[in-house]
């Protein structure tokens, strides 16, 4: 998932200057056209359609759909879920990357596989597992009921499901980066008398900040947009347990298409902002990784 900005990492014009190993102009043009057509049909058109449909009944209907109390409540709940899930996963990601990259220990691979697992699991399963633990007939169900606590069909369940599906994002970005950076900068800081916290804050953190931010952006986009897992645990109680994506579904199923697309357009906008931020960060993050890889290569040579 760590995408690469090709146009930034390779000085673009190499191809043109080397006639011997490129294709004929017509073929190049055809391939570019085919690729762009594919991206256009599958990505651009749906994106454009979201905004077009959102405004199909005019500005006023658009604004009305967004300012309606249920919509506002969905916004708030989405922000709460992301606001809890992202920081939790950031702390986890940093801790996991620190332990996995700065030390050697047995069972490392097991932990790495477990960290990857939420990416491989269907969102519906992500919801299901929490229902099985916390639901009324789940492991802790009776106990929760006794103490008048509800997790499933309530906000805590939504937060948990969101945490699960966004669990690997930060750790996955940091582990390769910190692996390549090695431990010598931290060791240098320690020989100079820095404490553990000073070493982390003044040496490690600045060198991973772009990667960290990159992970946070991706984590946040998924947290705000998650549908399947949240849908399973939410119970779809309007104005209570509806996040933005669930609100879109409800409106759509009630044939309020313009309103559904209006709310969807907010999420689409979030996606576009995410992509812009991501492209920018990728450049910075990629540079850090290349430098680290460069240093690692130097180390191997000698």
């Amino acid at each position: 998932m760590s995408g690469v900005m090709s146009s930034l990492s390779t000085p673009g014009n190499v191809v043109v200057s080397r006639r011997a190993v490129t294709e004929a102009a017509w073929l190049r043009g055809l391939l570019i056209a085919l690729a762009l057509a594919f991206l256009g049909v599958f990505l651009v058109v749906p994106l454009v359609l979201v905004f077009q449909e959102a405004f199909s009944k005019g500005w006023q209907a658009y604004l009305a759909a967004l300012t309606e109390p249920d919509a506002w409540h969905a916004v708030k709940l989405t922000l709460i879920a992301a606001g809890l899930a992202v920081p939790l996963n950031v702390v986890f990601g940093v801790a996991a990357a620190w332990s996995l990259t700065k030390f050697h220990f047995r069972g490392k691979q097991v932990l790495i596989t477990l960290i990857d697992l939420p990416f491989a699991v269907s969102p519906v399963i992500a919801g299901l597992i929490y229902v099985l633990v916390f639901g009324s007939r789940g492991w802790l169900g009776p106990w929760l009921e006794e103490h008048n606590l509800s997790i499933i069909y309530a906000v805590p369940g939504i937060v948990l499901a969101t945490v699960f599906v966004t669990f690997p994002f930060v750790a996955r970005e940091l582990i390769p980066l910190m692996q390549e950076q090695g431990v010598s900068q931290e060791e240098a800081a320690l020989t100079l008398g820095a404490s553990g916290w000073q070493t982390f804050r003044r040496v490690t953190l600045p060198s991973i900040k772009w990667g960290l931010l990159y992970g946070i952006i991706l984590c946040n986009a998924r947290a705000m947009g998650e549908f399947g897992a949240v849908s399973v645990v939410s119970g779809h109680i309007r104005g209570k347990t509806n996040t933005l994506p669930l609100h879109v579904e409800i409106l759509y199923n009630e044939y309020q298409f313009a309103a559904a697309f209006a709310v969807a357009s907010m999420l689409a906008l979030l996606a576009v902002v995410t992509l812009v931020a991501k492209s920018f960060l990728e450049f910075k993050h990629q540079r850090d990784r290349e430098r680290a890889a460069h240093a690692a290569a130097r180390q191997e040579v000698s």
Partner: protein
Amino acid sequence: MSRNRVIPGFGLSLGYATLYTSLIVFIPLAALAASGISLGAETFWAVVSHPQAVASYTLSFGASLVAALINLIFGLLVAWVLVRYTFPGKRIADALVDLPFALPTAVAGIALTALYGRNGWFGQHLESWGFKVAYAPAGIVVALTFIGLPFVVRTVQPVLEGLERELEEAAASLGANRWQTFRRVLLPALVPALLTGFALSFARAVGEYGSVVFISGNMPYRTEITPLLIYSKLEQYDYAGASALGMMMLVFSFVLLLAINGLQYWSLRRRGGG
């Protein structure tokens, strides 16, 4: 042991990471496994071999396979064009490839449904030619192609960038034409990355829910994917049935994850060796 670690924070970071992973991932997944096992072999088999379930597997796997194949071919094309050629808007196209990662699946679902529905921009033409996309298996393939699109591009792109131009120049100097060079020099070097991307795209597609539920129509035996079947069992409080099917999918995901890790390892070694 702690005496041997000069860099601080090992116990704290590993302890926290392990605890958090156990609480969020491991224990809930264990609950699913336990719940599936407690059904007993007979009930389990009855659920997972029910014709409705079997129909959903066929659909889920079939549609995911087709979508992953489409992404394999077009993903290679897009990666190739983005790495090798320059054209106006290239950076935007490159950034756009990640849209399926960033766009909530529900939004993708309703947008694709509107697009391929009877009155949609594409749907009206397709339907007049006799193709029904929305509320048919083809619609599911469209949605799964959308959500799996970035994987092949993003796994192939760095490998393609890392290939030395000397390889192609050497092939050309030995008399190979462009197609021969591609077939016999470039493509073999890309195989591990292509397979990894294909597997990632396939794995994502099999589990996908949000974008499919809108466009599929959700008719049992015809357009009902496995995750949706699990979902409806849960809605009917059939925890046992949901657990059994969930466990099937979990095992499948796990096997696929191991295969992907193996592929990535292979891919890395190939790159390191080349």
